[in-house]
């Protein structure tokens, strides 16, 4: 199990699919992630990692979403 923010070191290819296992974000962010469709059980791909600690761009189905490392810290992924 890794955090989404940890992928910034592994630099996975955009074709690699991860499954969201858990969200540990506090209530508002967590709820918003759920509303956007980033819920446990769903799969995401990591499209881009902005340099110098910038946002991470993920894809989940038809959604492309940029999120900060702070938010990505709370998204736990499995293979």
């Amino acid at each position, binding site marked *: 199990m890794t955090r989404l923010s940890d992928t910034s070191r592994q630099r996975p290819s955009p074709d690699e699919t991860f499954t969201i296992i858990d969200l540990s974000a506090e209530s508002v962010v967590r709820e918003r992630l759920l*509303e956007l469709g980033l819920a446990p059980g769903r799969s995401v791909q990591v499209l881009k990692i*902005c340099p*110098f600690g*910038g*946002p991470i761009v993920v894809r989940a189905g038809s959604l492309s*979403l*940029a999120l*900060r490392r702070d*938010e990505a810290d709370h998204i736990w992924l499995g293979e």
Partner: protein
Amino acid sequence: MSTVALVGPPNSGKTTLFNWLTGRKQRVVNYPGSTVDLAMGMSLPHLAPNHAPIQFVDTPGTYSLFAKSQDEEVTSLTLFGGRYPIRKIAVVIDSTQISRQIHLVKQLQEAGFAVVVALTMCDLHEKEGSRVDSALLERELGTPVVAINGVLGGGVKDLVAKLADLPEPQVAIERLQPWSAEKLHSVFDEGEKLARRVGKHDLKVFNSTRGIDRVLLHPFFGLVFFFIIMFTLFTAIYWAAQPIMQLVDAAFALAATGVKQLIGNGPVSGAISDFLGDGVIAGVGAVMVFVPQIFILFFGISLLEDTGYLARAATLVDRPLSLVGLNGKAFVPLLSGFACAVPAIMAARSINSQKERWLATFIIPFMTCSARLPVYALLLAFLFWGKPLLGGICLAALYFGGLVVGLVASGLLNLIVKAKTPSFFLLELPLYRRPKLMVVFRNSLRRTKAYITKTAPIILALSVALWVLTNFPHIRSQDPQTRLEQSWVSAIGRRIEPVFAPMGVDWRVGVGLISAFAARETFVSSMAVLFNATSSVAANGGNEDSLRVSLIDRMRNAKMPNGAPVFTFASVAALLVFFMLALQCLSTTSVAYREMRSSRFAILQLVSMNVLAYVCAVGTYWVLSR
């Protein structure tokens, strides 16, 4: 009369649909106490030939009915606040995103509204030879679904008819209790299954958008493109606008002279022509010179917005801006601040978290707007006459200085200001689209008009007031110098001279600084009047350059009562520092007040920036004159 609200997630096509529904007759209202706009309008007559027209309101984009940002709060208030009698809703759902957006329909139904689903972007499916099964969706949701083609306006008439025929809900409408995670989850699962049956699930447009993003979000090339694009925008607002601005300027100068000649120069008619020429026409001109630049700026922003690039730009620069408490969306407003703070503050609306918008609006006036340029040109020419390179370096330092002070101020304020709503950065990257130039053009025209109506009355009023103060009470005197020396403005100036003395200047410069509150560039023309540089130029049919030369000449010879020169290296440097930091623009203050809905904010900004500028200017003078 009932009102129908358009509700939908950001980028679902609400505004486009709203424009098809209401045409150009729209008005913008502010929900009381909020800083977010709502557009209202009546349905076009030809859309509802057999029905009474319907009033529509376009709400800010919202992902759900459980608001998590300021603009979502406004949507929620509009629906449940009781101010508008809303019982029917057109939910705008992007047909390429059905699985993610269907829960909004369910939430609205659960709250008791009668809803019609407007399914936009259907043309994207058709382009790829697939179809959206809206009949199936209609059956599953138990409510009418209308396929909309936002490009050609297809389906809009049908939507109006369905809305008109829809019976009003029987139940009372109530604000929803937040859904549990489990409920959200199961609605999502259903939505996903349903979406698969309704239409093709992975359209090719997504692939091309991802392909473009591989380049435009690339860690290296993405930044290169970013700088090219922003540099182009910057160049356009600065240099491309230049010739048009000069033309406008010349036209107003011509109009002023024309009016003066027409009315003549008798004892009374002279005063009237002076008033019209130097007070009214000059005031209108001060607003209009910036219009070309501001139009180009708005055009550029709308273009970037409409293509979908703006979200990418915000993503790329989010990190550095986050260090001072801002986010990526603040970049374009800050860049716009280099043209003019008024449109920049208007552009800051796109920052949807409250605290970040507050911070950005606060520091925008530190960016070197183009109204400061004529002042810098004058003062730098005085300091570095015949040394254009040094002048250029200093100019760059002034630009940079304002930016740095602004960012530091934001960083410090970030530590003090408390956020009312939690701020997070989750930014959806929409599909790239070919920009619709007509839409972009009309959009920029509308925003430019808003700029004019916001600034013109203030600048005009101040310009007229300034004229009165500099010409009364000795309006009948033929000699402009006496008129000025004994005018109200000089009486005021002499009284407040002690305030300006620590900056090393006399009352005349003080008056110049005060007059700059109408618009900064007024400083130059006031100085010309105060130091009597106009008469010698007018004699040889002068233009702006010769005015500057003659003014610099007068400045060199200007003496304090005790014989010391007014303009020394130290005092001019102090003036430059003052202009770099001061918020000398009442239009900015008024627009900040209106956008932030807070007189406290506007006063805090006005006072703190000017105090900072004054202290720094006095400090500069003190250090340099030792």
